[in-house]
């Protein structure tokens, strides 16, 4: 195991996707002596609970651009990171009701102009070519991205961790941070104290601790509005071989479906966040939250699924689980400086971080090293912590009316 140095040029809290991709980007730009502290194992937090869907479909142009930039890394992970990340280009399909046909068309146009390989597909084409078992009649229109699909969040995380280590980054697992240490007047970061009593001095700290960012920053007087939200997921077997089917964002029923190529199983996720169940950050830290889906949630998922696929009467329930996403009030992450000099945030990915991971690593490195984005068309302003008090939130260009899911 890597021993803990007394000083570091950069300390990162959290060895999930964001912590590791940031560490990798910083190391690639020549930063030496980077230490990543992880309270559990690599990818054991929100990363390990991610569904891994890859899509360019957003109604926010900036997130679309981040997804487009990131897809290059997923596609060429072996060359870029040196390891496979489980990229499965099964395609990504997006379906809306009658009311949102025009909005879908506008968004697809916006996405195309930002480099997404996407187009409107007819119901007939969906029925014939993409997903014959889907009852397309109840939908208004569909868009399809052949290069979307899914990746493996844990493999991606490991690939970033390995690539970062190869560049000299030290990743210390099972090493939780007890507190952030600031200068006497509280204006600057000095270092961190680990749970087992070690101190690492550093003038640069990146908090990529998911929900944990809340209490770490609260202790130094900064309010980071992230909290846990329960996400309940259901695994089913369709009971019949369906061939290659895409990841599917179903905005008619507010659900998403992710296929698994290896097993033929489907993951059913809920995208209706009208009645969110929150998890207190303290409970989350203590591991004190339910890991199973409720009967009610399972029933909801089944009803939605069977209404989309009425002929799949042989479909079977395999398992279900409950994950905790770290969410922000507007569903948009924090990639931000803080009132404390030397502390940066990279958290709050609100259940849609995986697909933009490579871009986030680059942006966070930009923020830390230069104070501004070097990524074309991707401004850091929408991700700043102060956006709520300044009442200046990122708005979608063409918002869908059916959804309460703000981050699409």
């Amino acid at each position: 195991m890597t021993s803990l140095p007394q000083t570091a040029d950069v300390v990162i809290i959290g060895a999930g996707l964001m912590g590791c991709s940031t560490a990798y980007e910083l190391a690639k730009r020549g930063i030496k002596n980077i230490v990543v502290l992880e309270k559990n194992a690599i990818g054991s937090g929100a990363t390990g609970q991610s569904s891994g869907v890859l899509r360019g479909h957003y109604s926010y142009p900036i997130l679309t651009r981040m997804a487009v930039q990131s897809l290059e890394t997923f596609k060429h992970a072996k060359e870029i990171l040196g390891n496979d990340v489980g990229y499965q280009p099964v395609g990504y399909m997006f379906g809306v009701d009658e009311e949102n046909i025009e909005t879908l068309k506008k968004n697809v146009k916006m996405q195309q102009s930002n480099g997404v390989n996407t187009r409107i597909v007819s119901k007939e084409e969906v029925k014939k070519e993409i997903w014959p078992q889907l009852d397309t009649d109840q939908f208004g229109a569909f868009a399809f991205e052949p290069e979307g699909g899914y990746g493996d969040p844990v493999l991606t995380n490991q690939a970033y961790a390995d690539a970062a280590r190869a560049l000299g980054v030290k990743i210390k697992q099972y090493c939780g941070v007890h507190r952030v240490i600031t200068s006497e007047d509280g204006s600057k970061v000095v270092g961190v104290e680990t749970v087992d009593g070690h101190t690492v001095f550093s003038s640069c700290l990146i908090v990529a601790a998911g929900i944990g960012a809340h209490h770490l920053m609260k202790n130094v007087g900064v309010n980071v509005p992230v909290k846990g939200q329960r996400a309940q997921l259901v695994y089913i077997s369709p009971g019949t071989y369906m061939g290659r089917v895409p990841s599917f964002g179903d905005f008619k029923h507010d659900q998403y479906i992710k296929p698994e190529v290896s097993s033929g199983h489907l993951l059913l996720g809920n995208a209706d966040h009208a009645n969110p169940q929150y998890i207190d950050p303290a409970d989350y830290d203590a591991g004190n939250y339910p890991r199973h889906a409720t009967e009610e949630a399972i029933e909801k998922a089944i009803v939605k699924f069977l209404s989309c696929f009425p002929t799949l009467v042989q479909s079977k329930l395999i398992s279900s689980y409950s994950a905790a996403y770290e969410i922000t009030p507007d569903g948009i992450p924090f990639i931000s400086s803080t009132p404390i000099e030397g502390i940066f945030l990279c958290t709050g990915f609100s259940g849609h971080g995986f697909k933009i991971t490579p871009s986030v690593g680059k942006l966070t490195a930009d923020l830390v090293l230069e104070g501004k984005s070097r990524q074309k068309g991707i401004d850091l302003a929408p991700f700043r912590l102060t956006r709520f008090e300044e009442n200046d939130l990122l708005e979608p260009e063409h918002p869908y009316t059916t959804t309460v899911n703000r981050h699409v």
Partner: protein
Amino acid sequence: MKIIVIMKQTFDTEEKIVIENGVIDKENVELIINPYDEYAIEEAVKLKEKHGGDVTVITVGTDEAESALRTALAIGVDHAILVEMEEDAVQLDENGIANVLATVIKEKEFDLILGGNMSVDNGASQVGPRLAEVLNIPHIATITKIEVDGKNVKAERDAEGDVEIIESSLPILVTAQQGLNEPRYPSLPGIMKAKKKPIQKLSMEDLDIEEELLQPLSKIVECYLPKKKPSGRILKGDLSNQVEELVQLLCHEAKVI
């Protein structure tokens, strides 16, 4: 064929067990059908599919156990009975549970009773055999195969690694061992239909059992987690030094030589 399955709801085997003041903490824990009872349910449904008849599942528990009964109904069981107990009611031991079940079952027609060979929580392996005793019928425990032909029953049982072949006749009680079958997953339409099926609920007052029969014959004296295994040690140096050190450690530290 009239089949009855006795079932218990238990903790998910993947749950982390937390003991507080000698009692297992149930908060946030997922409850499932005892895995051995799942084999019993699967076998009951298979026998029904082969021979006709119906399957009734019975459990003794709090209202939380309703979800386990619904799962059994989704898998293909026809009727479900919940003998409802309050969470803080007198804790019944295996003797008490067997007498409660016997009181319910005595009123019913049955050919075959199936259960798990043990529950994964308490692991006493007593309820099935005790129930057979109370009902005065034969029983075969830890079966891995069963064939029913008219009134004749032929079963294979796992006798600590050996296979015993036992012949008997209906009515009989058998308990399921791992290997009996591969339990099916409930179908999605089956789950939705099971939501609407009635569950017969009985209270202890309804059953009106003699106090004496419910008296515990055993008592849990203490409840504790297994000791944490200390981490291993890797000896270094050349082989002869390592052997020498190992012998020293076995003699003086572990004190096993």
